[in-house]
């Protein structure tokens, strides 16, 4: 008897939910073990402010009252409000009124929920063209990138930019494929919503226009003759629908809309530069190093993902060269993936100084590198299937699944083994953190790792200490203390000569320790360290 089969969309929906739930659980576990990072403070404060606003409102109607809303949203300002609003709502219920969640986790929860959408969205983008296996492999390869997982598990504007891009792409690829009116309308609405998550989605328009020109390249001459320019089909509805969904999800813009709208646009289009060390020098102004995003991406991806992505890219190039691909949808998707990847890694090189983003958002390239790697993995699986001698389909499938499980298992182990030091997780076969440290190319630590030192500070048994930590923001200690990670009152001092304790990492930190040593005649006492793979990332010294 033939078993009844679920419709295809139901299976995809179930997989989408399973991926969302799985990603959210994994991010929650990693997030619980990860201390607040240096750039999270403002976002978590915004979430708390919105949570208090929701709490103090006597009724739902009072939320529409202008002055209290404006006061609450002042901390969010021109930044996207949706994730902070979600986090604030969860924090109010789960941390303020009940003690279900730790405060840091509750304040991150809205961000985590949105950021866990990244993985199922990769599935939605790839599945219609490459089928379920390839889409699922891409999801696994995108999820198990240690340093990207670290960003996804914290409140991060960079991670939100990934989600915003993928949201719009999920609608756009359906517009390209199906040609009905429904998907351009949905895509337009998604664009407005994505803009309220991250203004970085505005740059995706450039990629989508380029992609539309590519897939309609055969019609270009005729279009030019008729004086028309091919644009994505969602463009026209986006002009009407996107502003509505955007305004609906940005309460800050409900008053003085034109003035604040301009402020939002200007802040989104202004350069965003955080002084960052690269190749041994602190870069804080143009010219920015052009290869930063590419180097950070290639050093951050597990070796197997880099190799598979290279194979995937080679396969796509080979297919184009030999013109063997009959299915235009697949080559269109491949072009979209390559364009997005190129845009993400080349933006620091091509952006004018007025629009520069530094350090570059290398994480934006991860889903597309994973999509290329999935292409490479599917090619390898197909080759392996041809080579398998057994005629038993089951045995063949079991062999292929074992090989795939080995590869995915390896990168999963790399990603989730040590959340405390995920910031240093560079590909081990490329030398790992020690190669990064010796070449002075990229920073090997994330300031949130300093959470690993706080027990040693408490163990000193002093109610308050002065501390000098040149590479760690002063707000980190307040965040850790308010999150209940330790008790000692920390007074951050700018001059190391006034400090009781030093927290340093890297060669510059060693030079500081030696200078303190030269001053006092005896070496400072090493109290605690944060290490990974035999490399010292952060060290806590007692100076006096």
């Amino acid at each position, binding site marked *: 008897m033939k078993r009844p089969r679920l419709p295809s969309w139901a299976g995809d929906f179930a997989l989408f939910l399973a991926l969302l739930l799985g990603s959210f659980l994994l991010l929650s576990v990693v997030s619980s073990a990860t201390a607040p990072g240096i750039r999270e403070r403002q976002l978590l404060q915004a979430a708390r402010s919105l949570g208090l606003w929701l709490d103090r409102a006597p009724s739902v109607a009072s939320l529409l009252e202008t002055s209290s809303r404006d006061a609450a949203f002042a901390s969010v300002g021109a930044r996207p409000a949706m994730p902070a609003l979600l986090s604030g709502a969860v924090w109010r219920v789960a941390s303020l009124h009940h003690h279900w969640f730790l405060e840091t986790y509750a304040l991150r929860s809205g961000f985590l929920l949105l950021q866990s959408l990244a993985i199922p969205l990769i599935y939605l983008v790839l599945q219609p063209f490459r089928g379920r296996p390839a889409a699922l492999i891409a999801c696994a390869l995108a999820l198990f990138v240690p340093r990207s997982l670290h960003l996804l598990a914290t409140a991060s504007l960079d991670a939100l930019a990934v989600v915003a891009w993928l949201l719009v792409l999920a609608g756009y690829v359906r517009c390209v494929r199906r040609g009905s009116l429904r998907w351009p309308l949905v895509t337009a609405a998604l664009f407005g919503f994505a803009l309220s998550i991250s203004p970085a989605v505005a740059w995706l328009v450039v990629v989508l226009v380029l992609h539309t020109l590519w897939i309609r390249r055969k019609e270009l001459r005729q279009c030019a003759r008729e004086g028309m320019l091919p644009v994505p089909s969602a463009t026209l509805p986006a002009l009407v629908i996107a502003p509505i969904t955007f305004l609906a999800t940005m309460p800050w813009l409900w008053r003085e809309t034109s003035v604040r709208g301009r402020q939002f646009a200007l802040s989104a289009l202004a350069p965003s530069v955080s002084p960052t060390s690269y190749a041994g020098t602190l870069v804080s102004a143009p010219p920015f190093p052009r290869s930063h995003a590419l180097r950070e991406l290639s050093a951050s991806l597990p070796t197997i993902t880099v190799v598979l992505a290279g194979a995937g890219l080679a396969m796509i190039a080979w297919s184009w060269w030999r013109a063997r691909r009959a299915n235009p949808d697949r080559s269109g998707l491949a072009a979209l993936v390559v364009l997005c990847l190129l845009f993400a890694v080349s933006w620091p090189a091509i952006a004018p100084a007025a629009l520069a983003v530094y350090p570059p958002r290398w994480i934006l390239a991860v889903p597309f590198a994973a999509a290329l790697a999935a292409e490479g993995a599917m090619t390898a699986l197909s080759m392996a299937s041809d080579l398998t001698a057994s005629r038993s389909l089951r045995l063949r499938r079991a062999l292929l699944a074992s*090989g795939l499980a080995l*590869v995915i298992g390896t990168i999963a182990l790399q990603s989730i083994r040590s959340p405390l030091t995920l910031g240093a997780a560079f590909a081990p076969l490329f030398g790992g953190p020690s190669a990064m440290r010796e070449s002075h190319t990229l920073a090997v630590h994330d300031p949130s790792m300093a959470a690993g030192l706080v027990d040693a500070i408490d163990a000193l048994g002093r109610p308050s200490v002065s501390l000098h930590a040149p590479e760690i923001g002063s707000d980190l200690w307040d965040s850790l203390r308010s999150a209940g990670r330790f008790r000692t009152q920390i007074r951050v001092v700018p001059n190391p000569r006034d400090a009781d304790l030093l927290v340093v990492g890297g060669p510059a930190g060693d030079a500081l320790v030696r200078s303190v040593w030269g001053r006092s005649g005896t*070496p400072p006492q090493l109290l605690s360290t944060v290490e990974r793979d035999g490399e010292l990332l952060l060290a806590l010294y007692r100076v006096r």
Partner: protein
Amino acid sequence: MCPQEISPRQRRLRAAIVLALPLLAVADLGAILWARSRPSLSSVPSQALRDAFSASYRAGDLVVASPPSLATPALSLLGSALPQNAFTFADPSRFERALELSLGGPRSRDLSGWKQADEKRVGPVRLRTWVNPKPLPSRFDLVASLQPNDVRVTHGPSPSAGQPCSFSSSNETDLPPSSPLPWSPRARFSCGKDPAAFVGAVALEDRRGILRRCIWIASGSDTVRVTWPRVPAGTLLRTAAIVAAPLAPNPNAELRVIVNSALVAQRQIHASNTFEPVDIAVSALSAGGELSIELEQRSGALLPICVEATLR
């Protein structure tokens, strides 16, 4: 594509590619497990290490730590067990004995050619005692003798360099973030208004991570001269010099050694220099006399150079 359509050569190639992928994953895993098994500073029993060190240490021993990237924190584990006058970060050739703290077992490059006399294990640290088979005793340490009564420091345009650099031993001056030192040492000769323009003893590391105490020489003018008017008799000057800001573009400097007013040697200093010692014959000092080290910068940017030197 059916398997029959593939030639045997293609088949072998495809099999190699397919097998390489899981092997790469396994190698990645192996690299992770190997890295995890590397010893860590956090697992060192500090008190036991201090006790073992105090039992082995003799006055006049050189104290080194390996690997070089962990030298500073590893020596910091010793705390007050390391005497104030202990020799660290010095050229090993003049010492008869050395104590080495090795985390994980690698041997310090500084001690190649030495004979191991003893080894103790304290957790992941190996505390080794080494004996130098051919010590080359130092008659005069130029770095240690950088004191106002022993030395005269001048700077200025080449060739005269006649302006004196003033000695101070008050407060340190903070140096710019791009400097390899956070601040100047208290005891220094200031050469001009720029706080980074001074001559003083500091500890710096070269590109290989080798650390040495050396004389930081920087000036607002193109030439600095450091003169020791009364050095004891000696026949060999062992020197090493590095550019203190190795990432600077194309430094071009010349180091000259002058004995009793006669130029005896000159060396170009490049960004690629390391603390590799160079011996200079100074037979004119066989009865002692005046020794000068002169540094002339010829590139646009005046970069600090750090010089280590002992008279043998």
